[in-house]
């Protein structure tokens, strides 16, 4: 059960984040050398570990279980519906589709433009990698908490799923030395947004004392409802906007 409700969704969602972090680290490494981005990546992982260990342990030990579920549920809804909204806008043509190759090329151009002194430590490269890994790593932490909120077994499964995703994506990155454009990120984000939202509704109301019929099985129903609504929303938005109309994502 923990494999289906925690490990696999955690793997898929974390893989998306690792792919995004890999794109930036690769761009830095290819343009400016590998020492600085690897140090930046390591520093970000240490920062993440410290933050998760201190805050995570403090929250889990101090906050009562019901309140914890409600807090996790609320955060998941804020996080998941944000993903789902963006995915719907992308599929409706209002926001540009996420293109890993384009992001990689833009990052390469920006890093080339920065210039570099060969003798000095590449501070810019380290900071860019640090920020990217920290940002995507924080999202992975959210994902692990989301799918692991059901208890120790679920948490362990979610952690294993995320670590496995990290290993697979890193190994592919090392082997290919190129951004992983074949990963269907837009579809994955759509699905993960719906999954996170379904978990959010489930945990928040469980925290309020509501017992879902069929317990964890009701997650399937919640997920189906979110996916159906999203599909209808995409059709509705396409109908609202003129054919072919696209606006820059950052302006929406």
């Amino acid at each position, binding site marked *: 059960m923990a494999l289906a409700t925690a490990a696999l969704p955690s793997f898929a969602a974390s893989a998306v984040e690792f792919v995004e972090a890999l794109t930036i680290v690769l761009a830095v490494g290819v343009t400016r050398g590998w020492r600085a981005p690897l140090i930046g990546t390591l520093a970000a992982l240490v*920062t993440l570990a410290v*933050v998760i260990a201190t805050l995570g342990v403090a929250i889990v030990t101090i906050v009562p279980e019901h309140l914890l579920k*409600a807090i996790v549920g*609320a*955060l998941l*809804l*804020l*996080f998941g*519906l*944000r993903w*789902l*909204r*963006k995915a*719907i*806008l992308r599929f*409706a043509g*209002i926001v540009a589709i996420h293109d890993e190759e384009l992001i990689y090329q833009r990052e390469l151009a920006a890093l080339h433009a920065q210039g570099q002194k060969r003798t000095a430590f590449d501070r810019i490269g380290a900071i860019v990698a640090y*920020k990217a890994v*920290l*940002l995507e790593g*924080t*999202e992975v932490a*959210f994902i692990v908490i989301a799918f692991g909120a059901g208890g120790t077994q679920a948490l362990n499964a979610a952690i294993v799923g995320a670590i496995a995703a990290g290993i697979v994506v890193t190994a592919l990155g090392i082997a290919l030395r190129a951004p992983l454009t074949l990963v269907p990120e837009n579809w994955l984000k759509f699905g993960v947004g719906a999954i996170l*939202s379904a978990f959010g*509704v*489930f945990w*928040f*109301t469980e925290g*309020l*004392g*509501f017992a*879902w019929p069929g317990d964890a099985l009701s997650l399937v129903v*919640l997920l189906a*409802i979110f996916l159906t*609504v999203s599909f209808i*929303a995409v059709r*509705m*938005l396409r109908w*609202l*906007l*003129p054919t072919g*109309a696209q*606006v820059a994502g950052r*302006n*929406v």
Partner: protein
Amino acid sequence: MRFVWENVVGLVIEDSQLAIGIVVTLGITWGLSTLGDKVQDVIGWLLLALLIIVLLGNLVVTARRAKRRLA
């Protein structure tokens, strides 16, 4: 720490209208859950329905804004 904090806030708040809508919905659901067993029995489905309304409302507003910009 500031960067971490900004990241965490950025993770959950991209569109402030949606974030406010979700927080208000959660507040309403929490408030209703304290009213008694009858409301408590449907609180999960009520939250789901309210969130769908908030999401669809936000999407329509965003699409209209985009349409105005294109016009």
